């Protein structure tokens, strides 16, 4: 031992190369050691949920900064880094994610994108929301402006997933979740969307409730276009249900005696009340136009087109609004079709016969009151009568063979008179018309079938 002490006094010369070696070792290994420690520290935190994690290594000392979502999580994260072999010291710069009070989350949709904002409790919730948004919304751009905060209400994930589904049903709008209260505003994408959203909100998780639901429905649109060239009536847009659908199409068939009805209507909920009561008379007004368009948007009815004569234009402008249910608005942009070229008596008779072969002037059963469905046909007859101003016309009334002959005679006379009165009210001189009733004396078909009787009940225009 004494020898060892004696020899050690001569060991000092080796310290000089040792220091040189030490310098080289320090120079070459420091960066490698730091890189290894950083990698292993990050690996140790792989399964720990942290926000804004930052690890820097200086020598063997690790500076660890992160936002943790709970105190336990924060402490265990620091312990994980401390336990990494080779780490000498951990400079703990971790802290807890700030708590949001109230905890607000929002989803906003505009024309081009959906923006998710407010707070999310965990990075996993946040990425889940983004994925769900992208999956739900197809190709719409999704912008993530969410922050992270503590203090989310229970069942936050399922509540926001449900709300995100509703954003897909909006054209534009905003859904905000404030703690457990839901606020909705905006415009539904489709008819029925508002109702679908309201129904879906009933499935919100326990404890959640809707504070304000200001979702508006898109306008309920019904359109009809009368094309005089193609001789079609095209119906597009929505009707409340199949019954109304059938009623509207049937009414169109009655009122448009010479046009083919093209039915492109779809059934959808969300119709304003009194829809059928407004649309049917509006179709009647359209049937009186030479060409025209009817647009029903919510409770607003717009009719535009060309009437066949002045009196019809005035009646359409002024009369239709009175037929509508309470709360409906009516706007008419009616002009008068330029008068057609005059024709001689023979052509005039042909035109009358042609019109009356396509349609028939209808009356209330057993009475001489003209049914409003016949207004379109009558306007055409008036227009034709105006084209041959010099001829006199016999208006011949006929009935079927049912009932008393005297009563039929009287009824046919009254019906002929009613038609004449209608023409006179339209501005034609009474002197040109001669109403005649023939009762059932001139049947066109046998009175033994309903079809035959229907053919026999008629008004004829005979040029004299």
């Amino acid at each position, binding site marked *: 031992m004494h*020898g*060892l002490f*004696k*020899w*050690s*006094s*001569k*060991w*000092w*010369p*080796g*310290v000089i*190369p*040792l220091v040189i*070696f*030490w310098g*080289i*070792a*320090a120079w*070459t*290994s*420091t960066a*490698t*050691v730091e890189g*290894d*420690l950083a990698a292993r520290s990050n690996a140790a935190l792989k399964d720990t949920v942290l926000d804004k994690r930052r690890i820097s290594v*200086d*020598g*063997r*000392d690790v500076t660890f900064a992160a936002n943790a979502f709970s105190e336990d999580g924060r402490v265990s994260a620091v312990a994980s880094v401390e336990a990494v*072999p*080779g780490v*000498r*010291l951990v400079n703990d710069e971790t802290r807890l994610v700030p708590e949001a009070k109230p905890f607000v989350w929002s989803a906003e949709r505009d024309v081009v994108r959906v923006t998710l904002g407010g707070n999310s409790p965990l990075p996993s919730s946040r990425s889940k929301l983004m994925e769900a948004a992208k999956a739900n919304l197809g190709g719409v751009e999704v912008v993530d402006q969410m922050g992270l905060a503590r203090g989310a209400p229970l069942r936050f994930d399922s509540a926001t997933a449900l709300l995100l589904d509703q954003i897909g049903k909006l054209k534009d709008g905003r859904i905000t979740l404030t703690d457990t209260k839901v606020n909705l505003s905006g415009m539904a994408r489709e008819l029925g969307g508002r109702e679908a959203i309201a129904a879906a909100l009933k499935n919100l998780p326990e404890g959640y409730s809707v504070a304000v639901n200001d979702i508006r429905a898109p306008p309920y649109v019904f359109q009809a276009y009368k094309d005089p060239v193609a001789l079609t009536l095209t119906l597009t847009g929505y009707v409340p249900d199949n019954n109304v659908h059938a009623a509207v199409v049937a009414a169109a068939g009655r009122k448009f005696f010479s046009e083919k009805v093209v039915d492109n209507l779809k059934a959808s909920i969300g119709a304003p009340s009194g829809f059928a009561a407004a649309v049917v008379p509006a179709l009647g007004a359209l049937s009186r136009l030479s060409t025209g368009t009817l647009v029903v948007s919510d409770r607003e009815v717009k009719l535009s087109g060309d009437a066949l004569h002045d009196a019809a234009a005035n009646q359409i402008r002024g009369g239709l609004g009175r037929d509508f249910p309470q709360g409906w608005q009516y706007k008419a942009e009616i002009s008068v079709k330029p008068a057609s070229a005059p024709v001689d008596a023979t052509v005039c008779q042909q035109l009358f016969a042609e019109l009356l072969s396509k349609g028939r002037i209808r009356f209330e059963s057993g009475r001489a009151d003209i049914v409003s469905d016949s207004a379109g046909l009558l306007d055409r007859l008036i227009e034709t009568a105006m084209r041959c101003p010099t001829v006199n016309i016999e208006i011949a009334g006929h009935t079927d063979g049912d009932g008393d002959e005297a009563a039929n005679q009287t009824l046919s006379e009254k019906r002929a008179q009613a038609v004449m009165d209608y023409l006179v009210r339209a501005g034609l001189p009474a002197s040109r018309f001669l109403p005649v009733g023939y009762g059932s004396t001139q049947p066109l078909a046998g009175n033994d079938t309903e079809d035959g009787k229907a053919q026999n009940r008629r008004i004829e225009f005979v040029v004299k």
Partner: protein
Amino acid sequence: MAALATFFWGWLLTAALLGFGMGWIAVVHRAQAVSKAWMRWLALLAAALVAASFTRIVPGRFGYWLDLFLVMFALYLCGCAIGSWLRDWVVTRSTLAARAAKSAQNDNL
């Protein structure tokens, strides 16, 4: 530190070999020995450095470099001790052998 030895084990081995060589030479070296007073001061300095290392008061890279130096220095000292002891053993044995041979020769004469 042991976990990090994979990155600088070559330098540790070098330090130990350097120590072994120095220890080997020191036994017969005629260099000037360090005085006892200096030895005390140096031991004190080494103890202070060890204390600084264990208390981890030297921060960051300097701390790592200190640890690295102390480990290399410790291995150097171990190498020196083994080298000197071995050399001493070899020298002593050859001296004894020489003496035995000499006495045997004298006996023969």
